[in-house]
């Protein structure tokens, strides 16, 4: 009995000590799925610790795209076990958090954004991606304006200047001439997001503003038919996947990329040896006077509800994501064009970019940015993308028609919506 008492006293004192032990530093955890974002967050955290809170430290953890969202969903579902304080959530996967119409597990930011005067400083069409039934849950990293990245040496060497292209017809004509000279080259490669972003360039999307699925619209089917026709004549092609994609960029098979602002950072990270060979131009329009850009991707920073440091997390996000310095620095590190309006006019966004042949990429993004089309969120986006990815190769290979596949996907999603309603 005596021994037991001793043990109990020891235990009790241990608990007491741990309870009064001072919290030395505030360490927050942040999950990101691209190294460009992680790099910027780490730098911002250091700056925040220097300028605002010396006790602050941020543990930035890089997790692969699929895993990050899966793990985050699971930890939020299990009441925040192992969840970070702040997380980057990609717009294509945010829908999964809204599935079933419940609370997505993130801090609602409306009051925070309104009080700080930030709401009107952020591009509303981008914030819509992280908004559900009036509640805002994320702060967008990038405006994601889509441009035409191209190998200046190849196109200009063949006598074409993509800056002069006005419509896609101009692009296709030049592409034909290049392929006639060198049949191994793919002027336009049909990457997984191309159809989606070109559809938005035309003002349509896979879901409309009311949340109805529209991937089987006449415009969507016609656009895919057009891409497949280009593939048949050799102007467009099917790029390799994964790391082999970068091999194809490096060996000169792929000579263009229809991609968003963030793709600029991807180029620098994955193909540094092509520095000085690339340039970027506004997207060719579908008809003269038409829209010269689109949007593709986008990621929102969110504060997880179960965090013990919500105030500090919000304060850090305000410092980094809602400041001119933070936004400008992000562009310098990652080529993400700020969705934060006060930062857009900053002259540091207009520095000559060595990778892009000394071009002022900022001027291009600023030029096309205001035309960026809206994009609508849906709880079913992620599932639709899963179905589309699975059927994609059959469509590209011509085994099944776009009409058949898109109709099937849309019907499946409509059936799901009904099953869950």
């Amino acid at each position: 009995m005596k021994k037991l008492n001793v043990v109990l006293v020891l235990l009790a004192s241990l608990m007491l000590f741990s309870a009064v032990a001072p919290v030395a530093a505030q360490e927050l955890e942040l999950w990101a799925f691209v190294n460009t974002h992680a790099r910027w967050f780490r730098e911002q955290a250091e700056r925040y610790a220097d300028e605002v809170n010396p006790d602050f430290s941020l543990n930035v953890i890089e997790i692969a795209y699929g895993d990050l969202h899966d793990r985050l969903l699971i930890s939020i579902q299990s009441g925040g076990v192992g969840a970070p304080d702040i997380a980057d959530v990609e717009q294509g996967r945010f829908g999964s958090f809204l599935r079933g119409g419940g609370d997505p597990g993130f801090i609602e930011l409306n009051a925070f954004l309104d009080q700080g005067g930030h709401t009107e400083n952020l591009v509303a069409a981008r914030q819509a991606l992280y908004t559900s039934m009036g509640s805002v849950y994320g702060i967008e990293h990038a405006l994601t304006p889509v441009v035409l990245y191209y190998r200046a040496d190849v196109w200009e060497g063949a006598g074409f200047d993509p800056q002069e292209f006005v419509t896609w017809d101009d692009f296709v004509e030049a592409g034909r001439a290049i392929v006639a000279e060198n049949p191994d080259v793919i002027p336009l490669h049909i990457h997984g997001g191309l159809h989606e972003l070109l559809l938005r360039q035309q003002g349509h999307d896979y879901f409309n503003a009311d949340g109805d699925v529209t991937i089987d619209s006449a415009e969507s089917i016609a656009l895919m038919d057009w891409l497949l026709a280009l593939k048949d004549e050799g102007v467009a092609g099917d790029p390799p996947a994964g790391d082999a994609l970068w091999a194809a960029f490096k060996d000169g098979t792929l000579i263009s990329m229809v991609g968003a602002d963030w793709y600029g950072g991807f180029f620098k990270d994955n193909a540094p040896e092509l520095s000085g060979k690339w340039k970027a131009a506004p997207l060719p329009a579908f008809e003269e006077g038409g829209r010269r850009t689109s949007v593709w991707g986008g990621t929102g920073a969110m504060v997880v509800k179960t965090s013990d440091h919500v105030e500090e997390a919000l304060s850090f996000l305000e410092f980094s994501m809602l400041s001119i310095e933070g936004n400008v620095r992000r562009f310098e590190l990652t080529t993400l064009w700020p969705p934060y309006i006060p930062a857009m006019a900053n002259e540091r966004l207009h520095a000559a970019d060595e990778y892009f042949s000394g071009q002022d990429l900022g001027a291009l993004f600023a030029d096309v940015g205001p035309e960026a089309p809206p994009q609508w969120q849906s709880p079913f986006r992620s599932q639709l993308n899963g179905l589309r990815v699975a059927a994609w190769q059959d469509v590209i290979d011509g085994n099944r028609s776009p009409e058949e596949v898109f109709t099937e996907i849309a019907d499946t999603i409509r059936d799901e919506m009904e099953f869950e309603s």
Partner: protein
Amino acid sequence: MFGRGRKIAPYLFISPFFIGYAIFFLYPVIQSLQLSFYRQVGLNKAPRFIGFDNYVRLVTKDDLFIKALTNTTYYALGSILIIVPLALLLALILHSPKLRLREFFRFLYFTPNITAGVVVGIIFGLVFEEQYGLINNLLLAPLGIDNVRWLREARWVMPAVILLGAWKWTGINAIYFMVGLQNIPPELKEAARVDGATRWQVFWHVTLPLLRPILAFVLTIAIIGSYNLFAEPAILVGLEGGPNNAGMTMTMYLYTRGFRELKMGYASAIGYSLAVIILVLSVVQLVLIRAFRED
């Protein structure tokens, strides 16, 4: 007081296992059985009882579930018809006393097994790559065979996964068979040889029947392993199973429905269907090779 304490003590000592088992195994098993009769979607929605609706939908309306089942069965057949005989052949070779560097080869064939599935998946993704990959460039191109679109064309996805499976699992199964071979008394074979049996007859009538318990074990593990296949195809072609979902296995389907689309009730029903399938197949297989026979 003391007498009672002594009676409790043994139970206290073995209790950690049972507590762990109850919390981490029994509770989820029962909870998910219950959940499989509910519709629960999303993060914060209350589950709603729907009886057998999930199961009915799985079997009658869900083409993707049927596809996952077919894909998984395809892999299981491949692994049983290719990997198991291959492992037996390898075991017979490694068992031969004439073989030099036997220990080295045993080690070599065992290493794939202790390599993490994710690492294997990433490396084989490069091996199967159509333009730049090892197989197309180094093995098929010299034979004059055109590039095979391993991970791009639906019909090649499962053969690629089976090839990977053969690489990974043949070695460990061969080791199981070798243990079995070592336990067969040499006198039996000698007696058969003395009676004039050919090598083949010795194998067929002496070695193979005596390997039956090992065969039963290997086949059961192969079936369970096949129906639980996840990491390799998930890394090779992605969690949606790649082109036309050709690489989607049942566990991948369960994972995506449950943890990506947050349909916990539906995913539970998939899990229970999977458990029933494995149970039935294992019993059928054990009966077929007469593993329960007492001779």
